[in-house]
């Protein structure tokens, strides 16, 4: 992935920055320009506002990777999951800090900040969200919901279908 493309995606990768339609309150991640849920898309033009997900969610599907893509060799075996966030959007992400074979559908998870990959030994290091169990495992504390900017309470959004 080019440096410029990853840099453009920094807000969503670092802080789960999505958007919310102010017309129907549906939350999207990654952010969209128009709301496909509204009856006419034109209705939502200019009315999509930034919205940070809380990082809380539930595993709805998973697989354990044993044959990794280049750059992920040191992580195997690892659990790649679909996480349905409490705000609605479903994210593809690794679940860490748990034996991958213990990951189950229904596992409550929270977002955590991790190194995603390195562009070789001399290249840029990419960071972003992964998820970790929201319940205590092996006595280790779990990650918390992401801090939200003060004065911008997370209004409840309608979940995407």
């Amino acid at each position, binding site marked *: 992935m080019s440096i410029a493309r990853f840099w453009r995606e920094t807000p969503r990768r670092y*802080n789960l920055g999505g958007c919310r339609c102010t017309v129907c309150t549906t939350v999207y991640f990654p952010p969209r320009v128009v709301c496909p849920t509204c009856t006419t898309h034109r209705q939502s033009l200019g009315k999509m506002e930034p919205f940070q997900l809380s990082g809380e969610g539930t595993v709805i599907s998973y697989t354990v990777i044993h044959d990794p893509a280049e750059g992920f060799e*040191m992580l195997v075996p690892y659990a790649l999951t679909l996480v349905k966030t409490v705000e609605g959007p479903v994210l593809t992400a690794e679940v860490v800090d748990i034996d991958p074979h213990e990951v189950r559908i229904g596992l409550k998870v929270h977002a955590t*900040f*991790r190194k995603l990959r390195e562009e070789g030994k001399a290249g840029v*290091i990419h960071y972003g969200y992964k998820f970790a169990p929201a319940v205590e495992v*092996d006595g*280790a*504390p779990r990650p*918390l919901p992401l*801090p939200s900017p003060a004065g911008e309470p997370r209004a409840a959004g309608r979940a995407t279908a």
Partner: protein
Amino acid sequence: MQAGVVSYGAYVPRYRITPTEIGKVWGVDGASMGASLNVQRKSVPSPDEDTITISTEALRVALLRGKIDPQEIGALYIGSESHPYAVKPSATVVAQAVGATPGLTAADFEFACKAGTAAIQTCLGLVGAEMVRYGVAIGSDTSQGAPGDALEYSASAGGAAFVIGREQVIARVLHTLSYTTDTPDFWRREGQRYPSHSGRFTGEPAFFRHVTECAKRIMDRAGTTPKSYAHVVFHQPNGKFPARVGKQLGFTDEQMRYGLVTPFIGNTYSGAALIGLANVLDHARAGERVLMVGYGSGAGSDAFDFDITDAIESYSRSAGALVESFLTGGVEIPYAVYAKFRGKIHLGGS
């Protein structure tokens, strides 16, 4: 000085390895090594954790606990000797990850194990001069000892973040001073993977001289004695040095009880004294006084004389993980997994 700690957070990776397990690989009595260092386990970062991720997790906890708007952070400094980049700041990534950009100044600090305390002093200056509302000082590391070296039994990973400000201060800084000399006890040259050290020279002329002198000087300035303090925190490259210097200065085991965390998680370098301070703040009560003396090889000590304020009674410690959970929790791994996690295994190909 009215400025001080407004909020704090700590983070230690999940994995642990014991000195016994390390010793097995090198034909060394690891249990004895651990006992002589007073290190029972050390933390190990996952392959996807580094100084930047640890700093981010610690700061997110601090912001949640203090209910602090990240846009009010005017300065952010990270002290570490394991910044992932030689050129490109860790601080910018962390600032972006907590939502503090773009209206702040940010930089990486390096002074062996005391870069985090140096960052606190810098923030105190900025906050005291009313140049910023909040300054963030983080001490964080994922340092390594060379395989088989004595450092391998203690070098671990972890960090703590402190938000420095003037409002709702839970630990007011009454005094701070430093003691600095050119003493080559421990170093890592540019491009070198592992640090080097001068063996026993790291003791008397380095750690003990600087910590002792700095502690005495701040107590002289403050007009205090060891009895004035409920808690004391020293830099802790192992569990032995801080216990010995504490006794030499006249502090009791009870005063060092919460500030000494290295026996349970190893030496987190720039994070060591700061995680000890975080553990003290997890337990401190209003009216208590706390002394912290950091140490960084090369060499220097920073000392802080804290007064715990009434604000700590309403402070939301439970909004983040207490240090105690890191001291007792975690998963022990064998040396083979440790070697994989720490990049000591080289894959084939280019």
